[in-house]
């Protein structure tokens, strides 16, 4: 089965699917799977063995992690250091000058007329902080919706579908959108939501409206809906896995002892699936904070995300300022991930 999945994945990826700009995200995506595998019953023993081995000398373990460490060092840590260094460099008309300055950080936070009660900008935060804020707002909104939509899907797969075969088949079905490029998934919304789109045709046909409505596309509504559709599966996966490993006997026992379905959920299923929820939410959070293409395609560029700001400054070759924005975004992402981890202690729960 694993073989068939990987072949499909590698062949179905269109050649134009550019993955380069998301290196940090990629790294995030690549790291978690071991944790998921660690969730299967066999793994804890393996973990313990590795730990013991580590204590006894750790030589093999060091060799095992060497490729990953090297990879991360070269493709994550070094570029990151580069970004940090660039953020302090001076620019003159697009040309980089290795002369340390804090100017770009000042520009990031500073608002002209902040203390001037006559100014249009009186007591408003800088546009870049506000952009980061709106990026965060959409991220939080979409995360909540993904949880509301995604949890029942995962629950159904793990609890209601009896056979393992069917669970896997349906789970793979959930992953179908991922077989195509990210951009195609976003673009696919256009013929659906547009003024001459499917939904509008339907509304016109049924006489609900007499002329096409435009709030569906290039609007907050359409944007959020597309984001939820694109990212919800990232949440379903981990939640499904953590639900699937719950021992059905516990639920049986609770039912025998007279617990109501709500009690079972609150006392057993809910807490036991929390690690999956947390991991899923971290996936979604990290992807959404770096989001920029959907805003362009489905929101018609009418909202700026920090991702688009970085692109805009990259486009005028102001790399240091793009770097400052990237670092602030990363800082916000780190804070977000820490908060999620604070709410759920994944290590303990696993």
């Amino acid at each position, binding site marked *: 089965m694993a073989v068939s999945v990987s072949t499909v994945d590698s062949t179905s990826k269109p050649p134009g699917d550019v993955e380069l700009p998301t290196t940090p995200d990629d790294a995030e995506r690549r790291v978690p799977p071991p944790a998921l595998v660690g969730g299967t019953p066999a793994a804890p023993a393996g973990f313990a063995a590795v730990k013991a081995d580590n204590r006894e000398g750790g030589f093999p373990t060091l060799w095992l992690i060497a490729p990953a460490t090297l990879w991360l060092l070269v493709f994550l840590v070094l570029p990151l250091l580069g970004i940090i260094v660039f953020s302090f460099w001076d620019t003159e008309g697009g040309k980089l000058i290795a002369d340390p300055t804090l100017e770009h950080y000042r520009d990031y936070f500073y608002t002209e007329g902040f203390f001037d009660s006559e100014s249009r900008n009186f007591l408003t935060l800088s*546009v870049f902080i506000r952009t980061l804020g709106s990026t965060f707002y959409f991220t939080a909104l979409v995360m909540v919706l993904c949880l509301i939509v995604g949890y029942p899907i995962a629950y159904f797969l793990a609890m209601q579908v009896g056979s393992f075969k069917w669970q896997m088949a349906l789970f793979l079905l959930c992953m179908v959108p991922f077989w195509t490029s990210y951009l195609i998934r976003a673009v696919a919304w256009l013929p659906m939501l547009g*003024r001459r789109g499917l939904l509008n045709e339907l509304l016109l046909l049924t006489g609900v409206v007499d002329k096409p409505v435009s709030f569906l596309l290039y609007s907050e509504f359409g944007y959020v809906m597309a984001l939820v559709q694109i990212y919800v599966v990232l949440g379903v996966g981990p939640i499904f896995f953590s639900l699937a490993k719950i021992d059905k006997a516990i639920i049986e026992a609770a039912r025998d002892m007279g617990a109501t379905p709500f009690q079972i959920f609150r006392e057993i299923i809910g807490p036991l699936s929390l690690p999956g929820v947390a991991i899923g939410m971290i996936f979604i959070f990290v992807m959404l904070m770096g989001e920029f293409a959907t805003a362009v395609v489905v929101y018609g560029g009418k909202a700026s995300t920090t991702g688009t700001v970085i692109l*805009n400054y990259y*486009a005028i070759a*102001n790399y240091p300022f793009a770097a400052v924005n990237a670092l602030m975004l990363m800082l916000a992402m780190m804070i977000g991930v820490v908060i999620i981890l604070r709410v759920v202690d994944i290590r303990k729960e696993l």
Partner: protein
Amino acid sequence: MTTKQKRKTERSSSRGVSRRTLMGTAAGAAAVGAIGGFPAIVRAADPIRTIGLGVSIINEIQGQASTDLGFPVRGQALGYGAMFGKMLNQNDQYEIAEGYFNDMDVFIPSKVWQPIDTTRIKEWDKVTNLSKTGKLTPESAVGQGDAPFRHLWLDENGERVDGPSRYISMVPAWHNADSIGYNPEETGRKIESWAELLHPDFAGRVALLNVPQIGVMDAAMAVEAMGIMTFKDKGDMSKAEIDELINILIDKKRADHFRAFWESFGQSVNLMVSGEVAIQSMWSPAVTAIKAEGVPCIYAFPKEGMRGWHGGLAISAKVTGKALDQAYEYINWWLAGWPGAFVARQGYYMSVPENVKKHLEPEEWDFWYEGKPAAKELPDPFDTIIVEKDEVRDGGSYWDRFKNIAVWNSLMTENDYLVKRWTEFLTA
């Protein structure tokens, strides 16, 4: 189709001689001695590298150059930001920069390119006055902003000088003038002014280009045409002017005037084909693409004038010796007509029209340059028919179009401030 395939095989065979095979051959050849036809391969050993946008870097163009010139020309098409950054910060990574005159305020002082000696440009005299004086015809108006003639003339050290001189920053090549595209069935009237872009009649059905430097120029044309604001120089706005303009735009955006902001050519085509917008700032080749989808579209010819842009060919400061000769050969090849005819079929113009004429069929010349109805079906550069018989190109003849350039694409002194305020406009 067959010619295209032939061209492709020719190109791949010329590319087949890679540096690695050559080093092997060279090592062997040193012992064996001269082999027939060997000198031609030696020339192929040193390719020249050229970078630019997809407008001028197209496999077919650099492939044809390789065939015609006898040495490989390797093109790399980049996005605007990547191109700009690479040109500026890595001038050892290319020989030729296919750049744009609106970036010259950055490139001339940076000295990353060398002054070009016009005595080595064979047909320099034939390059029209559009780029030399700003006036294509004696009665033309001179536009505001970064017109080529304002950034053309240098001395041998690369410092700016006034008026005609022996050295230039970049050899003027492909160019065009942009305005507004609209669907006449949706607007219900002929669009003849930039003011229509902000007209309340089209609220919710308008799109702008989401490139701050250009988008703001189109918006400036609109507010000026509406008479609600004036600019000292639209090509170099002051902070106060940028503020006033962006505030007007923010109010318009909050009133839901704009349907979307497009970033790519394809997006602008989709917006009109799918019926989302009735009128938008647009690049002229989009008209053909929209009409090809069966949606009526007209490219407006506003009375205030159009917004021009001009590309050209520059040489990196690092290039010397034989590579420099090759670079000049490539530039001369560009002016000689074949590439001009190629880009003409996409709707762009060249700085030496008379040479382009030699490489176009008479019907093509009449349609693309003279603005006359097509005498027969006409193809794009890739042999797809895109012009129906009797179709007329919007905007009239080349000379009509460039007689009235209101403003040229520009890089303003306050560019950073502009981008910041544009971000605010989009976030509002």
